[in-house]
Structure formats: structure tokens, C-alpha cells
């Protein structure tokens, strides 16, 4: 999967939880959860959605590594085939 394809999947998953998000206004280098107002249930659903689509299991201990959209993309990039 290319970085572009991965980005599409991640954004589509995000939009399924927060349909009001303007993707173009998202800053990839700023904390995602505060930009998009994701509470812990939304966050869990976001990760569940990624798990379903990409078959990547994200242990809770790794949540701290997933702060920005860039973090999420590089974390997944290293684990998705």
C-alpha cells in the first residue's frame, strides 16, 4: 500500500467518525484529537476502523505515539503491507 493510499484510508476512517471535518484544514503536524475533538470513544472507534481496514492491531501502550496525523501515518506505514 502506498503512502497515498494509506492516507486515503486513514482520512476516510476519520470522516466516518467525524463527518464534519474539513480534511484540507487538518494540520498533519498538530495533535489530531484536539483538532478534531475526538473523545476516547471516538478515538477507540477510529482505531477499530483502521484495524478492520488494515488488519493492524494497535496496543493501548502505543497510543502515546499516535499524536498527530503524521504520527498515525508513519506508525501504520511501518506495519501495513
Amino acid at each position: 500500500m502506498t503512502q497515498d493510499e494509506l492516507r486515503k484510508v486513514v482520512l476516510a476512517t476519520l470522516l466516518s467518525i467525524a463527518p464534519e471535518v474539513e480534511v484540507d484544514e487538518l494540520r498533519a503536524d498538530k495533535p489530531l484529537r484536539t483538532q478534531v475533538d475526538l473523545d476516547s470513544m471516538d478515538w477507540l472507534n477510529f482505531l477499530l476502523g483502521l484495524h478492520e481496514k488494515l488488519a493492524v492491531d494497535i496496543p493501548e501502550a502505543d497510543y502515546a505515539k499516535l499524536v498527530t496525523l503524521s504520527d498515525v501515518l508513519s506508525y501504520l506505514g511501518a506495519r501495513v503491507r
Partner: protein
Amino acid sequence: MLEFTLPSLGSDMDEGKLLEWKIKLGDRVRKGQVVAIVDTSKAAVDVEIWFDGTVHELLIEPGATIPVGTVLATLLAPGEKAGTPATGRRKVSPAARKHAEALGIDVDTLAGSGPGGAVTLADVDATAAQSSLGRQAATSDRQAEMRKAIAAAMSRSKREIPHYYLSEAIAMERAQAWLSEANAGRPITGRLLMAALHLKAVALALKKYPEMNGFFRDGAFQPVAAAHIGVAISMRQGGLIAPAIHDVGEKTLDEVMRDLADLVKRARAGSLKSSEMSDPTITVTNLGEQGVESVYGVIYPPQVALVGFGRIAPRPWVDAAGWLCVTPVLTASLAADHRVSDGHRGALFLAELRDWLQQPDKL
């Protein structure tokens, strides 16, 4: 003959708009079955029937706005025979029947405007247009309507309920450590959130302090044995809704978590059930995710208490041995109705809640 009336789906509701029948003449229905979809100011709600029976007459047409208590349908009780035979075969023009089938509309639920009450093509079209328009209008007006509904309920609360407020700082080290360990051994599909622990702890504390759980109606408190906890869910477009998770005290943490995830999903998708809207016996709100330290809520009438949770954050703390340390702390608050309980009992309730959160393995 049994009458199925429009139930109240919350204290801020006095009318509803019938969007759709989920039953037709002659259907056998069971208690708890979803029989209609009704639009309230807050959401389209799947309305469940509260008895078994056979549908005899549908009295209200989809699209109609009716007050709470209106008879929507009559049903024959199990074993009951209709005094007069239910209306025979409806007159339906063949074109109308075909068109209705294509649209998934039940012709038996339509009022006919043709000769002898026959259902015509135009009747089918009118119904189809009404129901899709109804859904659309429902979304666009919803924010304004929801704001009005919240305003009405909260004004009534502040006018009628003599609130008192208490708060308690709770050390959350044990609960957090237990949760991390539990989740480390779980796949992402089975993970728990702290919110599930909060809800279960509230339900268990209510067993000892039942005066926080129930309704104040007609000048008297009516306690409820089961903890049907209303969970305040913020809607992404603004506003909030607080449907119930039933019998939280009798459920395992996994069940509470599963129900919570399901409830949030359905609240946002607009498919809540009538019992979830009308049943909450207490409300829990969690604003900690937005970063506030504590929240003092407004009780949702006719309930008599609301528990608020703030953010869990590291704070200076004096441990049991008298040492100053830094530990994760949660501020839990109680807003309760002075007509029903006093601050002393409220304080004991919060202490009980605190104690349960120190024993996460027992939740």
C-alpha cells in the same frame, strides 16, 4: 382491545411526528418490538410497544405530528377476537400497488383518496414524498429544535429542583493501572474505556443510596431498583442527548462497555429506542475529555441526581502513609435533588463511589 399511545420520550417532549410504521394490520407484535419511528425534537426514535398483541387498526398516518398520549393504534390482546372483522381487503389501484411495492411502502397503512377510499397512485407518491421530506427536514431543523428542548428541560430543572452540589477528589492510580493491564491482554475489539468503570461504580454505589436513583413525580419520589444510567452524549453538530444503558448494576464491565459503544454509535446515527429515551433513572456526564477538572450538572427532570466526572490528571496527593506524592486524580461531583436527599447522604454516596473505584477488579 389494547390502545398503543404515543409515549413520552423524555421530559422535554410533548409531541412527536410519526415518520414510519414498522407494523401492518394483522401483524402479531411482541412486547419490546419496535413498531414505529417517531421524530422528537432530539432524534428519530424507534418506539417499542409494551405489550403483546395483534395489530387491529393503525389510526395515525406517517407525517402527522401528534401530542404525547394520542392513540396511535389499537391491537387485539392475545386470544381476543375482533368484535367487527378487521377491514377487508383494501381497494388499491393496481398501479398504486405496484408502485408502493417498488418503494417499500405498505399500502395497508395508506389512506385512500380514490373512490370508496381506494388507494391511488397519487396517495402512494404523497406518502413517499412526505416520509423522505420528513427525514430531511428532521436533520436541518434538529439543532434549533434540540436547543429548544434542552432549554425547556433545563429551565424546568432549575425552576423546580432545589439542587445541591458536592464533589470529591478520587485517586485513580489503581483504576488506571488495572485498566491498562486489562487492556494490554485484550484485542482492540474488546478494549475497555474508563467510562465503563465510572458507570459501573455509579450503579454499584446507587444500590446503597437508592435515593439518588428514580423519579420525582406528582410531588413524591419514586425510587427505581434498577440503575438505568443515562449517558450524556454530545452530538457532533451540537447539542446533547442522554439515553439510558439499562440495568448497569447487573452487567459485567464488558457488557457495560459493549452497550456504551453501541449507544454512542446509535445516538450519533439517530436510531435510539423509546425505552432508552424515557427510562434513565440518573444521568452521568463526563466532561473530562474536554479537559475540565470538574462538572456540576443540571439534573434532568424527573430524575433526582446527576453524577459528573472531570479529567483524570496528575495532582499532588497525600497517600495513606502520609507521604506527599503525585498521583492521577479524578474529581467526581454529585448534583442531587434536595426534595429527596440531603448533603449528608449525597456525601456518603460519593464516598461509596470513591471506594468502588479503588477496587476496579470488583467492578
